């Protein structure tokens, strides 16, 4: 029964965080935006009467708590408002751009799991200061390189100079077009996945079952592949799932560099034209995906891992 209690509490706290996040956005928009939505929509064409009319139409003349109530009510009905610039419903605009982002984020996730886990397994158990220093330094360099600089370098080398990969664009979902943006997006994260995989494997290697496997005659390598890896993958899988949420939202700069028609690049154009409903809608979608994924991973991890299932139902 404990597991159901855990799931229930986890889902409730997910809803609380989502409510908090949309409330935070509401507060930020209403307290910080100079002028109001009516002004933003009409711009320089505005006259005092037309502004007054539009305000009444949008409900901006009502008290703040009424506006907040309406905002939540519309969100509950998946109504994210209308874009100022495109004059279309925000949810349909987002629906157009989300697939390209999910495609890119999925590819980057695959890349970072394969390379990160492979690297972690190679490095695990090698204890020499020189190796550590070299890998820490190369990892830090990858993390320190801004994605747009890395993207531009890769474009220059592989598209302009060698001409073996396309410069940019989705190319009608052609996998060749995916290579450079996915590498760019995954580069910084590979290090984190690798480091965690290595640390997790080294923890497993110190456990009794590993020693038992060795004493049954398995080589270190066999014990690692057959037993250690399987147990070390748990925390790594959690990190990867959380990363997928980050990648969905964090692909913005990569998408801009590679002219990738995804959610991030769309949000960027919306921010340039200060199309507040569109930016707000996109941010709400990204936050929701991120929070929901995190909660699902937490729940799955707990359900799939019997050792945790019996333990304390609630921590963090």
């Amino acid at each position: 029964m404990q597991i159901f209690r855990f799931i229930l509490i986890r889902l409730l706290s997910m809803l609380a965080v989502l409510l908090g996040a949309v409330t935070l956005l509401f507060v930020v928009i209403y307290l910080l935006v100079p002028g109001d939505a009516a002004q933003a929509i009409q711009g320089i064409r505005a006259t005092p009467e037309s502004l007054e009319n539009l305000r009444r139409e949008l409900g901006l003349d009502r008290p703040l708590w009424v506006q907040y109530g309406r905002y939540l009510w519309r969100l509950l009905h998946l109504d994210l408002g209308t874009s100022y610039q495109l004059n279309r419903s925000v949810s349909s605009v987002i629906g157009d751009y989300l697939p390209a982002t999910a495609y890119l984020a999925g590819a980057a996730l695959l890349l970072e799991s394969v390379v990160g886990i492979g690297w972690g397994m190679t490095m695990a158990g090698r204890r020499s200061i020189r190796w550590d220093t070299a890998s820490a330094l190369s990892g830090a360099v990858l993390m320190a390189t801004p994605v747009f600089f890395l993207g531009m370098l890769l474009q220059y080398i592989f598209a302009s100079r060698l001409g073996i990969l396309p410069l940019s664009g989705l190319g009608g979902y052609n996998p060749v077009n995916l290579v450079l943006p996915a590498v760019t997006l995954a580069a910084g994260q590979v290090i984190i996945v690798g480091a965690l995989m290595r640390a997790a494997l080294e923890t497993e290697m110190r456990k009794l079952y590993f020693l038992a496997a060795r004493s049954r005659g398995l080589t270190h390598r066999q014990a690692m592949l057959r037993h250690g890896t399987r147990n070390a993958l748990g925390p790594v899988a959690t990190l990867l799932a959380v990363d997928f949420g980050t990648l969905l939202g964090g692909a913005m700069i990569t998408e801009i560099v590679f002219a990738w028609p995804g959610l991030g690049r769309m949000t960027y154009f919306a921010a340039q034209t200060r199309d507040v409903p569109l930016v707000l809608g996109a941010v709400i979608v990204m936050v929701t995906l991120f929070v929901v994924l995190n909660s699902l991973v937490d729940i799955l991890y707990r359900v799939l891992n019997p050792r945790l299932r019996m333990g304390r139902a609630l921590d963090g």
Partner: protein
Amino acid sequence: MASREIPPKAWGPAPAQGPVAGGKDLWGRFRETGLGPLAGLMILAIVVTALLVPLLPLADPIAPDYDQVLAPPGSGHVLGTDLHGRDQLSRTLWAARTSLLVGLVATGLALAAGVTVGSAAVYSGRFIDPLLMRAADIFLSFPAVVGAVAIMAVLGPGVRNVFLAIAFFGWPIFARIFRSSLLSTKEMGYVKAAQGLGAGEGRIFFVHVLPNSISPLAAYSALAVAGAILAEAGLSFINLGVQRPHPSWGLMLAESIGQFDSAPWLAIVPGVAVTLTTLAFILLGAALTRAIDPRASRTAG
């Protein structure tokens, strides 16, 4: 739960077995790989250069000179000139000031807010604590740049807004680290001993708890400065940060788009500058993690 910026855990605790660094003191562990002192020297050089920029005999970083457009590095301009004939060396060095300023101020703001909320959470009792920590969760539910972009879209571009946008979503990790550090320090034997010896609440907090709780923040602060420098470059790159014609590394890279074939120095100079500066702070953070937490004596990676 959220993997904003650089999760400190991924860097540090690969709980080492055996006395790899055991017995070494703080400084010994800091310089163990040699990367710590290297980071220190790099940061010293960058900070001193940034401070000296106004005194150096550099060309005007803003005024265009259309007789000198796209001059390659070497001849008269050590690092070449850009599309408006402005000296790249001068622009790169002036941009270092903006970059460091944003990194330090944004991190300082986030640190101050985080320490305040963290201590409030620990010392204000069992009702306020969960509320504050859930508030931190809410701020952490915004993936990486997304929150900062939303704030910049609302506030409008500009350096001051960059500080605010970065700090606005940066404080919760400081609050969490400081809170858990305070909680574990409070239970330490030496704190109990001080209580047993009759020391007052205030004395215990300032002499024993605070100094011993603050160190985990040092390592994360260095990483946060790196994150803020990258965020500033990113926001300026997408036109939401520092505005033309002022120099910023991100903006210089944005202006170099389409010129890579004919004038590669336009992208490489500012690109290398951001990377090296960020690298210095990441290495410092890694070395501090290693120094402060002896169990993490082996930097994973």
